[in-house]
């Protein structure tokens, strides 16, 4: 698309209303604002390069999110290979709203560690971004009923993973379930 101003303008016109939601999705998908912003930039650069191959403007949203999911899948493989685990838990004492958010993110990351990249995207879009089953079906090229079943399974696996993690953790230092939690979470493996 390089050099084609008209196409470039069209790309940014379509992107503008979707950008905040897209950025929020990327941040929630990666579980970290910085990694999410990196994913936004990578995915948008890929989308910008391949925009001329998009034939229908109506499909822009699905196409854009699909690019982000694909990019995230690739990144996830790299991270897993480099770090072994991408989901360390914080060992800070949680006592304010910001730390509450961090703890929630960490716990969600732990729960989502059992899912594939596509399943993580599915859960993020539905549970955190509020996408309907029909929107998800259009994006993933599947049937709504099938996605619903898949999401139910994902949720159950996340619950079981989180429970296992809780049981492994020190019971004295990992107290959960309180509406205003005061939780000390130990580093995984410590």
């Amino acid at each position, binding site marked *: 698309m390089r050099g084609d101003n008209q196409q470039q303008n069209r790309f940014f016109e379509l992107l503008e209303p979707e950008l905040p939601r897209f950025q929020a999705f990327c941040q929630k998908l990666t579980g970290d604002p910085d990694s999410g912003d990196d994913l936004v930039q990578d995915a948008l650069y890929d989308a910008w390069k391949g925009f001329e191959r998009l034939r229908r403007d109506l499909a822009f949203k699905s196409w854009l999110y699909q690019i982000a999911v694909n990019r995230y899948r690739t990144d996830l493989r790299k991270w897993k290979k480099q770090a072994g685990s991408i989901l360390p838990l914080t060992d800070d004492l949680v006592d304010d709203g910001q730390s509450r958010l961090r703890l929630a993110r960490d716990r969600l990351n732990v729960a989502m560690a059992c899912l594939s990249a596509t399943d993580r995207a599915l859960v993020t879009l539905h549970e955190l971004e509020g996408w309907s089953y029909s929107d998800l079906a259009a994006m993933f090229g599947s049937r709504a009923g099938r996605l619903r079943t898949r999401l139910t399974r994902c*949720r159950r696996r996340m619950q079981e993973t989180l429970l296992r993690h809780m049981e492994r953790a020190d019971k004295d230092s990992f107290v959960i379930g309180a509406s205003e939690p005061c939780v000390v979470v130990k580093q995984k493996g410590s």
Partner: protein
Amino acid sequence: MRCREAKRFLTALSEGLLAADDQKALQEHLKKCPSCGRLALAGQVLTNDMEHIRAVPVPHPMTIQQISEVIASRDKNYKETSLGVRIMRHVNETIYARPRLSLAAAALMVLLVASVLVPVRTDQSAGYEVAFAAPGSGLVLNTLSAQKMLAALDIGDADIDAHETDSGVEYTIAPLKDSVQVRKLIVALDSLGGQQVQTTLISIKAHNRTIWQLLLNADVQKAGLSPNAVHVEAQDLASTINLKERFKGDFVLWMPVGDQTEDSLHGLLMDRQGEKTNIQIFGEKGGIRTDECGWDQNLKNSLVNQQTPDGKWASFKLHEIEDVRRLEKMGYNFATMQWDTPRQVPIPGMGPQLIGIKSNPLTRETVIEYKVPQAYEVQVRILDEHGRRVRDLIQGCFPLGGMHLITWDGLDADGDQVRPGMYQCRFSAGDYVETKEFELR
């Protein structure tokens, strides 16, 4: 309520689809079952966390202007990057994005490199070679029709080498990829007999030990061939012994011969002079003077059977496999062995044949399998262990060429059931007669 049901209810609860009565039942179960209680707690934690994250706005929202600057900057960097780095980046990303495809591509590249570096084995070292002769007088088969036959058998890739001899035309077909193709060809040659095209199988050659083992173990017998028709090259003495013990055929054994050959062979073979020989050993000429080897002319004639065209190899005959073992102990290295077939000898497997007899003790039926290359006058007779006639199953019949089965129901000529025991089946087709024993249980 069972735990399995409780888990299902928990899932429905998280989706807001659980009825009030069911919620009550679920709560009661959760009070009793700590395991499900902890799972419910984890689910609640997860739901709370997701709601919390959902409500939090994006900390530093990007603008279109920032995005366009980022894209422009990246594009500039991309254009300034050299082609090699771009390719390496692209390969790197492809490996992560499509690991299976990358693995397949890598495997393909290794194969390509290997195929270039490793020399392809020549036809001499792999595959089969079948040679057969068609007598000149009744020759109907020519090269063109032989090619058509091969194409019909789906082995059209093989080359046909035809050359005339005094007695007709000899054909050599090679390379045949596997023993299945060999078998197809043999069956086709066999069936030509029914079309008045007489062919004689000269040899089947396999230049690889694994291949000849397959051939011997499976296809020779399946194709109904006599082992005498098989001409194989093996690599060691063990193969020779296997062949000898398995088929009792004649052998030609090739070996390089050292300096001590003359004396040892002389001493060894003197005892065998004049006897019928079963095994031939081809030794390298080096240590043996074939013309002036010191042995008397009679002995040389009986020993030296054949020479290779280049004159480097000569043949020597031995009588028993034990002699071959003895030679090996003396330090001879057997390079190549051939199991040879004298030419112009009729091949029993190509004519009428009693292939097999199978007796079923449950049904008391015996199935007799035979084949005839063309319409012969056939007789199949059952005899008892003393040679007395029990029943004629086929008498003066002229079946068409091919494989045939006939079932004997265990009754004699008077219709009475015969006793269990040993019986004989005598099969005759024209002048050919073959008798086999079998047990009726």
